[in-house]
């Protein structure tokens, strides 16, 4: 196995595109190293992107934030501006692992690992985040929900890297939140995850909403019917019930060692509801 740590994105892309065997990007390594050690994967080339300066920065851009692909969860948690604008995204990233894991794990790695249970992804999807992808053919911007193709698979082409994630400017009256269900209190994997981002007008009426569900399908689900159940309402009980029902209906879970399909469907509704309430309260705080 060859290890390379280039200092530019172009060099990284060239290395990845030039390798005929299995080539893997290394960000924090909290997924990759586990997979290497267990013998799950045996890459011919590992390209560490942490020495590329632009992957290490959080930058303001068009009122939003561009987060380099090698920025760790801990760095995101310490960024006051980011935290104030996107508390739901940051709390989702901060749920990943422990203090030790937080020092390494990245949101882009969480996204590219393409686990249906990845914690930051439903929050990013709800937030309307995009990923900047660079590759041999140049650079393109992709909605985050289009990055994962299935469990452990991405839509990235040969030689392509996620260079950064972009969170748009936070609108007036907007709030986001993320909740997950785990059987333990920490160090666990989401059995269900729910991210909600919504906007309230001056009367507290929801004008826009995005609801994303994790771990209840092969990829994170953007639940449009669930979001529609909120739009036009003040998030009264009836609307929240409708949201929960729509979220349960949108879930396509399976029975596995982590929970039954029936359980996940029900809890998806419960979590969507609880997450929406937190997002609503944050939106109200933002409007005030």
């Amino acid at each position, binding site marked *: 196995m060859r290890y390379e740590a280039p200092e530019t994105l172009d060099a990284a892309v060239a290395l990845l595109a030039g390798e005929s065997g299995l080539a893997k990007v290394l960000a924090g390594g909290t997924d990759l190293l586990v997979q290497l050690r*267990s*013998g799950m994967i045996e890459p011919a080339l590992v390209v560490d992107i942490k020495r590329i300066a632009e992957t290490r920065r959080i930058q303001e851009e068009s009122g939003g934030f561009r987060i380099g692909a090698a920025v760790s969860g801990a760095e995101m948690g310490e960024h006051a501006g980011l935290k104030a604008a996107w508390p739901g995204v940051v709390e989702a990233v901060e749920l990943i692992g422990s203090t030790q894991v937080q020092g390494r794990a990245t949101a882009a790695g969480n996204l590219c690992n393409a686990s249906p249970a990845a914690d930051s992804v439903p929050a990013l999807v709800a937030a309307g985040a995009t990923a900047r992808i660079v590759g041999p053919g140049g650079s393109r911007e992709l909605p985050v929900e289009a990055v994962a193709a299935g469990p452990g698979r991405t839509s990235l082409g040969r030689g392509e890297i996620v260079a950064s994630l972009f969170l748009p400017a936070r609108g007036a009256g907007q709030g986001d939140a993320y909740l997950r*269900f785990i*059987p*333990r*209190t*920490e*160090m*666990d*994997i989401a*059995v269900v995850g729910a991210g909600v981002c919504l906007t309230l007008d001056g009367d507290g009426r929801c004008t826009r909403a995005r609801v994303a569900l994790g771990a209840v399908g092969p990829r994170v689900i953007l639940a449009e019917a669930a979001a529609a159940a909120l739009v036009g309402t003040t998030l009264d009980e009836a609307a929240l019930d409708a949201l929960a029902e729509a979220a349960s209906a949108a879930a396509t879970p399976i029975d*596995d*060692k*982590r*929970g*039954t399909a*029936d*359980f996940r469907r*029900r*809890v998806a509704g*419960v*979590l969507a509801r609880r997450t929406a309430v937190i997002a609503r309260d944050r939106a109200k705080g933002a409007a005030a």
Partner: protein
Amino acid sequence: MDQSQTTLPRRFKVVGQRKRRPDGIDKVTGRARFGADMTMPGMLWGLVLRSPHAHARIRSIDSSKAEALPGVKAVVTGADFNGERNDVSINCMAGDKALYDGHAVAAVAATSRQAARQALKLIEVDYEVLPHVTDVDAAMKPGAPVIREDLITAGVEPVPTKPSNVAARHEIGKGDVEKGFAEADLIVEQSFRTEATHQGYIEPHACVASVSPDGSAELWVCTQGHFMVRNVCAALLGLDSAQLRVTASEIGGGFGGKTTVFVEPVALALSRKANRPVKIQMTRSEVFRATGPTASSSIDCKIGLTKDGRITAAQAELRYQGGAFKGAGADFGAMAIFTPYDIENVKAVAWDVVTNRPKLAAYRAPGAPMAAFAAESTLDEAARRLGMDPLELRLKNAAREGTKAAYGPTFPRIGLASCLEAIGNSAHYRTPLGPNQGRGLACGFWFNFGGETCTTINVNKDGTVGLSVGTPDIGGSRASMCAMAAEELGIPYEKVRTVIADTASLGYNDVTDGSRVTFSSGLCTIQAARQAIQRLCQRAALMWGIDAEAVVWEDGHAKPAGPNAGKFEPLSLAEIAAASANTGGPIAGHHEVNAEGAGVSFGVHLCDLEVDRETGSVRVVRYTAAQDAGKAVNPDYVEGQMQGGSAQGIGWALNEGYVYGDDGRLQNAGFLDYRIPVASDLPMIDALIVEEPNPGHPYGVRGVGETSIVPPLAAVGNALRDALGVRLTETPMAPPRVLAALAAAAE
């Protein structure tokens, strides 16, 4: 507890104090050497090839390609196990069949881990996959695949003519249950199932073996019993046990799971073949797939009571599977199930069943927690139906001194009633519950064990003392040994150092199991100290020129027995030791025993939990454990045992369990999906130490290591019943089951 001070005959100086643990600093600084911390010159890395099939005939194994790989020094298979080919041997290395997912079929030793890993892939095993069964009830059904063709059920008449998956039937009982049930006003009957759990020790099995061409061998290993390792490995490989010296490393948890061998004979066989030292270190996944889970069980339980809460009869049928080898421990379950109670009519039938799962290893009170889950849940239900307080119901029926247990013995002094009273008097018991909370109570019993034990005390010239014991320290026992030696000799705790001697330095010691070490090695230490004292007195007599009988030992000093003995200044242990060259040489004390009188152990647990009725999430919010320690030599470590067993039992109740796929493969061979509780999952567990002295030990000590895992399954289950209004009867009582039970109840 205060009562102990008045009931115990002696006032202790060191015993009963919370002394600093001698292995503490090394363990928190990382200096302690565990199984994986040993390396030797020229050492090879050993890796084990494991069956991916739950059940398969091994038609052939071709290792020629692996052997040709550069760096590979040896490959072994079952054929290299040239000693006894018993169940333990076959579990370490398969014979003509792979009996479970993870069963070892071959092993390699190579100069690097990479080479060894590559070599594993080059070993060609020709499997004929056979039908499998992993569930205990399914394995007992007619038509189930028979996994051991030579297994004829023992204990049934007439003797079966055909093999089956039922290894044995056992029956325990007394009185006449038919008569007892006829006298009952209320009969409660329920069935329960528990999934297999793993001991979950943090340290995977690891060892380094070195076999010399002259036939002598060394083995460094993390184990609960290095004498057992020596004897078993010698037998499996046809070695001479005097030639095999085994040294026990520090141990990162065992809980019963390190009371047998897995990779040790494999490392020895590889080393013998390669003529180089070989290290084997299991991965976590190997630990889950191929080492010691506990039995899974299926139990029917029936209890009859009078209106005023007197138990008239109790009956149970217990079906346990313990993997592909006989010995699932259902008989222990049957012996333990109703033992906390004084019941005239008892019948417990146990079925020992084999399935395509790894061979069970002991886990803290093996066989008892699932039995207690059934009995204590059924009793809880009875208390509800009678409208009686669950504690009162248990006190009314509690076994006491003079009670004859269904499994045989008549109890001497025991502490169950005292534990119930301690819980009844606790603030916890009287604190009102909050919304969505429930409270559960359960009792537990464990036999405790004594066993073969041998210790040596050496008095050093500077007045310090070296104590050699043969029982690996898995719970702070060196601290307790130091305390007992210091107590007896009358010297400060800090003057004693206890080591776990290797197998060449002491006589045979049974493994650290059955909660036996503080009891047996403690008893042996006290006797060895008494022998050393006798010799110290003889030396003082020589120094004074008087008869040895005229010398007594008090407060760490030899003193003339009385005015007639002469007038001499007391001599301290250090003074006698300093002069020992002139009085006959080194001073030592030794004792060996097959200890009896271990003294049974009882505990009572009280659990409060809170349920999220929308997600099924359960959080234990308060937990109190009361247990009879006889005499707590070091209260810190007694509390530690009570808390540790409670934590493991809560994990078993709520989230832990082996998950097998339809293909017979283990689905959750790692700590991510095998969920032991993490620190933030549990409240501080309150430990109430009760001290009813054990008449079988000089200081009244009883073992405390195991009982604490017996009550939690039922304590949690009963609390859940209280909170939910419905009873869960199958572990793990995980959120999907909680929600499903609520949904079923709502219909």
